[in-house]
Structures are given as C-alpha cells and as structure tokens.
C-alpha cells in the first residue's frame, strides 16, 4: 500500500501577528462549525481515490487549530479514521498557541488520537512577544506545557524565531535552555522572514524597525545550532532540531517529496503528479463546490529540481544512488564542475553515497547550482 500525509488547515486566529503572511482570519467564530463540516466533506471526496493508501501522518496547521472547540477536531479525526487507512505509527500533530489551549483541550486531543503537539512559542521574552503581536506570554506557554504533559503528551514541539529585532546570542541561548528544561523534544528554529503585505514589512521599510544585519544573523543561527546540539537536539533539516526519535514524520514526508493532500482554505496538495491548491477565499471555500486551483503537472525537470532542493535541506542529504535510478542520470557526472567547486569551497560533502550541504547558511546558493 502506498502512503501519504494529510494536512488540514485551520485558518482562524485570535489576532494577526505582525510578521504573519499566512492565510488566516480573525473574528470568525461563527464559521467554526460550518468550516468543520466543509473540511469533512472535502476529505470525503478522496474516499474512493485513497482506497489503496495508508495515512502516515496528519497535521492540523494554521492559523491556530487550537482556537477551534476540541469537538471540531474530534469530529474531523473520527471522519478520517472511519473512512481511511492509517498506519500503526501514524503521526497526528496539532498546532496550538498557548493562549487558546487549556487542560480540557489537552485531554480531548489526546483522546481523539492526537499524538504530537506543536506550540507557537516564537520567543521567551514577553516584550518581544508583545512586539510581534503574539497574544500570549512566557507563563502561558509554561502552563500549556504542564497541561499537555498531564494529558500524556510526550512528543512536543516549540517554534522559535531567530533574528527578531535586538535579539542577542544570549537571548537565544536562554530560550533554548528554557525549552530544554521544559522537556520539549523538538524545536523548529525559523529565521524571521519579512513577507510583503505584512505590517512588519512596512515597519522595516520605513526604518521603524531594524532587523539584525547579515553578520549578526549568521552568528545567531550558528549560536542556535550549537546551543541546541549541546542540549541534545540534532539538526535534521535546516530549521528543525529533535531529540533522537522525535523527528517530525509529516515534514520528513515533504522533504522526501512524498505525496500529501491539503484540506481547507489555501491548502496545498501534491498528489498524482500534480501540485494544486485550494481557494484562498473563506467565503468561496464555505459556499462553492471544491475545486483544484493552479494545477501544475510535474515534469521530469521540476521533479528533479524539487527532489534536489528538498533533500539538500536535510542533514542526511541527497541519496545519489536513488536519485540516479529515479531520474536515469549520473548526478556526479552531470554536475562534475559544480561538485568540484563547492567541495573545494567546503560548502558540501559527499559521504557514503549522500550529497550533503555543510554550510546551510548559503543553502539557496548551493541548491541552485544543481538545478537543471
């Protein structure tokens, strides 16, 4: 049986953070129930198609999935379980924000089958949290962790941001230290991106806010990697760190270029050799028939580029033998010149049949070299 992943988008938030470029809506409580219903309808459209498939992971992302009443999550999960095959070790993650999480929800999620929680912490500094527009405090997060553990969750992730204004290496070390003490077993450390159309973009443009310069960012990332390693978190992808055995299967499926189906507003899918997405309009999603948008058929070329791009983001790197077999090529011959140059500059290594990036800070520069 083939395997794939489900991504379920919950596009609702308590408030909009200044750096957020995702599709999410505030003050839409009245839609929660109907949205839940539509999600289940959309999922069921795949019932026949997925007869011969097993789900290896399910991911509730957002937005803020924890903003929904826990019954909604339970209903969706029970619909999935009743109509699709799940692997025994199926990873079921739910993203939660400390402010919309409580003890009752923790138990409800656990009972519904959720086995991994991912908290959007972003910073341990209340001032920074306030600046970013996050509606929670460090204390809220500590409570959330406590409830999660009480309910029996072991697999817990926290997101933190690198490169917020005035962040020092010491701030970063303190945050990682704090998370290690809280018993979090997975940390995603993302560089703060300034997306167009966000409030942060305007603030940076008008010089109201100054972000760390290139040299500072380099240092911050290096510090984070070292500090995380010190506490036993191994980097397994550019921005993802885990205690051994707690790597996120859902994301690993993306980087292996596995198939996935996305449900909900603005959700992306890669299935049957096609990339496609759902409408970004909440009204359309709620009221119009489901329709794939921006369908793009994969070509040998895009498949090859994506495989390289995704694999090189991971610590394991690209399995050259598999690649050559899949694309009927000889990677080392095809990119002889590039490999030599980059090896000489110490940016990549080839070991045991895997091509690996050794300096992730310039990964785009390197990945692009292997694009065809």
């Amino acid at each position: 049986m083939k395997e794939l992943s489900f991504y379920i988008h919950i596009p609702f938030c308590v408030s909009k953070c200044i750096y957020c470029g995702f599709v999410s809506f505030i003050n839409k409580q009245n839609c929660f129930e109907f949205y839940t219903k539509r999600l289940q309808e959309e999922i069921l459209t795949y019932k026949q198609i997925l007869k011969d498939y097993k789900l290896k992971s399910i991911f509730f992302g957002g937005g803020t999935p924890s903003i929904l009443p826990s019954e909604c999550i339970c209903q969706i999960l029970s619909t999935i379980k009743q109509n699709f095959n799940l692997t025994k070790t199926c990873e079921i993650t739910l993203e939660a924000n400390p402010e919309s999480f409580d003890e009752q929800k923790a138990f409800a999620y656990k009972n519904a089958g959720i086995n991994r929680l991912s908290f959007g912490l972003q910073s341990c500094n209340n001032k920074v949290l306030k600046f970013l527009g996050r509606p929670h405090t460090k204390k809220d997060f500590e409570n959330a962790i406590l409830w999660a553990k009480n309910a029996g969750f072991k697999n817990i992730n926290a997101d933190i941001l690198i490169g917020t204004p005035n962040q020092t290496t010491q701030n970063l070390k303190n945050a990682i230290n704090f998370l290690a003490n809280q018993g979090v077993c997975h940390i995603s450390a993302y560089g703060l991106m300034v997306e167009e159309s966000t409030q942060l973009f305007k603030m940076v443009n008008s010089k109201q806010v100054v972000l760390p310069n290139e040299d500072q960012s380099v240092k911050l990332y290096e510090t984070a990697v070292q500090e995380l390693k010190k506490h036993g978190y191994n980097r397994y992808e550019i921005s993802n760190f885990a205690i051994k055995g707690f790597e996120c299967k859902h994301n690993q499926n993306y980087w292996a270029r596995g198939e996935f189906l996305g449900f909900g507003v603005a959700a992306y899918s890669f299935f049957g050799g096609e990339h496609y997405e759902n409408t970004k309009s909440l009204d359309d999603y709620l009221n119009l028939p489901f329709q794939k948008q921006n369908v793009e058929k994969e070509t040998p070329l895009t498949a090859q580029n994506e495989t390289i791009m995704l694999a090189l983001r991971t610590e394991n790197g690209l399995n050259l033998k598999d690649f050559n077999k899949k694309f009927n090529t000889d990677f080392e011959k095809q990119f002889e010149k590039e490999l030599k140059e980059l090896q000489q500059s110490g940016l990549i290594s080839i070991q045991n049949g895997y091509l690996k990036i050794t300096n992730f800070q310039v990964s785009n520069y390197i990945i692009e070299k292997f694009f065809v």
Partner: protein
Amino acid sequence: MAEQKNIRNFCIVAHIDHGKSTLADRLIEATGTLATRDMQNQLLDSMDLERERGITIKLAPTRMLYKKDGVEYVLNLIDTPGHVDFTYEVSRSLAACEGAILIVDAGQGVEAQTLANAYLALDNNLEILPVINKIDLPSANPQKAKQESEDVVGIPAMHAPEISAKEGINITQVLDGIIKEFPAPKGDKNAPLKCLIFDSYYDNFKGAVCMIRVFDGTLKAGDKILFMHTQKQFDVTEVGYFTPSPKPCDCLSAGEVGYVCASIKKVADTQVGDTITSATNPIPKPLAGYKKVQPVVFSGIFPADGSKFNELKDALEKLKLNDSALEYTAENSTALGFGFRCGFLGLLHMEVIQERIEREFNLEIITTAPGVSYHVYKTDGSMLEVSNPSNLPEPSTIQRLEEPFVHMHIYTPPEYMGGIMDLCQQRRGISIDVQYIDDRRVKLVYDMPLNEIIYDFFDNLKSRTKGYASLDYELSDYRPSDLVKLDILLKGEPCDALSLIVHREHAQERGRMIAEKLKEAIPRQQFEVPIQAAIGGKIIARETVKAVRKDVLAKCYGGDITRKRKLLEKQKEGKKRMRTLGNVEVPAEAFINILKIDN
C-alpha cells in the same frame, strides 16, 4: 518608356524630424502612385525600426507619374538617410539626381543637417528647391525660415512653397516646383552603358538587387554587365523600377532610375558608388566619387547565452546580406567566449544592428563598449590598426598612438554656448571657430576625437541645450594622442571584454566609475570579489563586492515547495545569462551598464 526631357530625378534633404518622410508620402499620394488606403505613414522607410525611430536608413527610389499641362512627367524620388552615420550613402544618392528639395522647418529654421545636406547637394551640382514645412504649427514663422535659408544657406528662397506635409497643404506647389526648377537628365541612350549604384538590398528570390541611375546607354535583361570597382561580371536577369514596389520593365535608358537584378549572390558585390558598364563594350573610366565604405565604430557582440554562438553567426550573416557596411570577424574573449568584433558606420548604425539582432532573431546579446580604430605606430616602424583594446601591443613596443578626429559643427541658441563649450572641452575638443549666424543662433566648429563622441556626447549635448542644439560631423584625420589601455580586474584577473582605450587624463575617472558600476551589477558570491581598474600594473581604482554569508533560510513545507522551486529556477535562469570570469559570475547587464556612464 518616358521621354528623357520629361524625367525629373530628385531627392529630399532635411534635418532629422523636419518632415522628409512625411513629404515623400504626400508626393506619392498626390501623384496617385498609391491609393490612400495602401499608404502606411512614411512607407518609404520599410523597416519597423526605422519607422519607430522616425529615421531613414535604407533608400527606396520611387517612380511617380505626374500630369501637368497635358504632359506626363516621370518623377523619380530618391529618399536619403537622414543621419550623419550615412553621409557617404547620401552623397551617392545625390549623385543620382539633378535636383534636391531642401526642407526647412518653419519653426526651427536651418539646422546643422539642413546645412550639411544642402552643401552636399551643392557639391553634387544639384538644383535646390527650398520648401518651408510645418506651416501648420503655431510656432511657424515661414518668412523668417525663408530669410534664414537665404542668409545661411545662400540660396534664393523667397518663392519657396510654404507647406504642411502632415496636413497635405500646398503639395501641388512642390510638384510644380520640381518640374519647373529641376533640369531634365542629360545623357545619350546610344552611348556605352554607364550606371551608378546608389543602393542595394537582398531579395530571397532575386539575389542582390541594385538600385541604379542610368547616365548613358540602355540596360535590359540578357545584357552582360561589369561592376567596375569590384571587377565582377553578371548577366542581367531583370530590370525595373519601384512604385514603390518593384515593377519589371523592358529596359532602363539614360536618365532613368530603377533596379537591376543579375543573380548576384552577395550584397557585398554591389558596392554603393560603384559604376555598372557593359562587359562587352565598357567605358574607360568609372564615375567619380566612389569610396569603399569603412566602419568607424567597433564593438564586440556576444550571445548572452554562450551556447547561442551559431544563432548569432546566422543573424549577422543574414543582416550582412542586406547591409554591406556591416563588418564582422569572429572573436574569442576569455571573458565572454566566442562572439564577433563588429564594425559600424556610427553609433546609430550600431544600435540599429543590435536591436535588429535582438528583435528579428530573438537573441539576447552582450555588447562591449563601442570604440574606434587606433593607429598604433610601433618602435620597429610598422603600423597596426587596433579596434579591440585587448589587441593593443605591449606599451614598450609602441612608439606612438593616433586616434581618429572629426570635424564637427554645432548649431545652438547663444544661451547654451557656455554649456556646450564646457562639454566639448571635457571631451578634448579643439575650438576652431565660433560664428554668430543671427541673434538667436551660433555655429560652433570643433575638432574632436571620435572616441569622445561615441559614448554619450549627443545625449549630453541635447540635455545641456534642452534639445535645441544640432550636430553634424565628418571624419577628418588621425592625430597623435596620449592614450592608455584601462584594464578591469576581477579577483585579480584582467577581464578582456571590459578593457578600454582612454585618454590618460580621463583614465582615473573612468576607471573609478566603471568599478562603481560593476560593484552594483555583480551579485554577491560565496567569496569576496575585488574589482580593480588598472593602467599597466598600476591600480587606479578599487571596489569590493562582499561575499554572501547567508541567504534566506525560510521554512519549506507543503505550499512552499513549488514557490521556492520557482524562485530558485528563476535565479538559475538569471545566472545562465552570466559569464564566469575566473570563478566570478558576472551578469550580462554588467557589460551593458558600464556603457551607460553619465558625466
């Protein structure tokens, strides 16, 4: 066949934008040569590019029939290019005529090219019919324009037709003037054949087609002809004339204008100014005035995508078919790979060729800085012509360097004189003369190195004079100059395609500007890239492109995958247009940007 006494061969000369092509259109329309619905504005300029820029490069002679007092006249209009790059072609077209219509703009009066073209016409012993155009404009002052024509050009102009070519006003007066003022051609149709080639073009079916004026004799299909300068012989397959589309006819006789086809494979065999005679009964001496056309501006042209060399070669071959003035030889640059060193009649010619390559052949190209041909006198007594800076010999073997100078006339309202004189001085101009033509116009005469003009002199002149100044120049001679080769080094390696020959006094400034431009154009790479400008071994300017230390470590999940892939693909596509020099990646734009140095 028309009677010789009823033929009039004439051309129209004017300053650029004074309405030459528009008047030509009106004459064709007024004589009923083409129905109005077939007219496309300025149809004589057959190439799109010419029409877009409002300039004429190719000449297209048109036969028009005009009845006056019961007599049918044959009017042959020979259109001429209006740009200083093509002075020789203009002079050969004029040699095919007996008369010239001189257009004077009713608002602007006599401009530099009005005068230069009028003198060219006088040199060719043409009758001149002045015509005051654009009388429909509010700024028109026909009386003043007439007075100026008399004072400046020195031709009677008080009875000149006052017209608006655009509005079609008084066009008949022009036609009547042509018949009255211009003499009929002379020549003996029974004498041995004597024809002037004043242009040629390539036709896919007929081969090279010569546009000719018959001075003596008669030419018909089946004749054996000899081109006197190239010494090539051909059998005539077809003769005819243009209306303006080609119309075959039985023969062309003394006094007539038309075309001849003779299965000629290359336009290069049909040199403008050459004389056609009979191969069996040749005349002893060709017509005077022939010159081999020499390119004066040179630049390297390379495909932006290095793998497209053959496509570029193909494009140049095709363009050359129709443009004997274009010259090119293969060139191999360490920086840019395989390409061509091309010679042009001038900057406009260069730009037109570049645009045609990009537009008609859909090829992106990299062009190196335009330069001139230098005379290098070596210590061993030999002389070398160098148009590619990287071919300049070792300084120790050079006795002296000479560069081409032009003799230049600038016409301007007096208030801009100061600015122009500053500019000319900056460009190493030598003031020869200053003449006040009247209270609102001054003529400045300068000798100036050609190299100083080809960058952006004309743009600068226009911006300093709000567009009021006009310019005309001709190559005069070669003069010794204190010239040096300016090298650009990337990461310590000289980049041949960026080398320039400049005057020693300007080297420092230019080196600094190029280094600054390159710093902006070269993207950051994984290592630091020092950019240096050097003369000999001496560094005169330096900039540094800092190394990339970090690119964006964005997350990459579901929806990010295609977006990110496309972003990187786009980046990669951009890099395809880059050249690797040493191991520095330099985008095509860098080579183009350094050409755009403003003062």
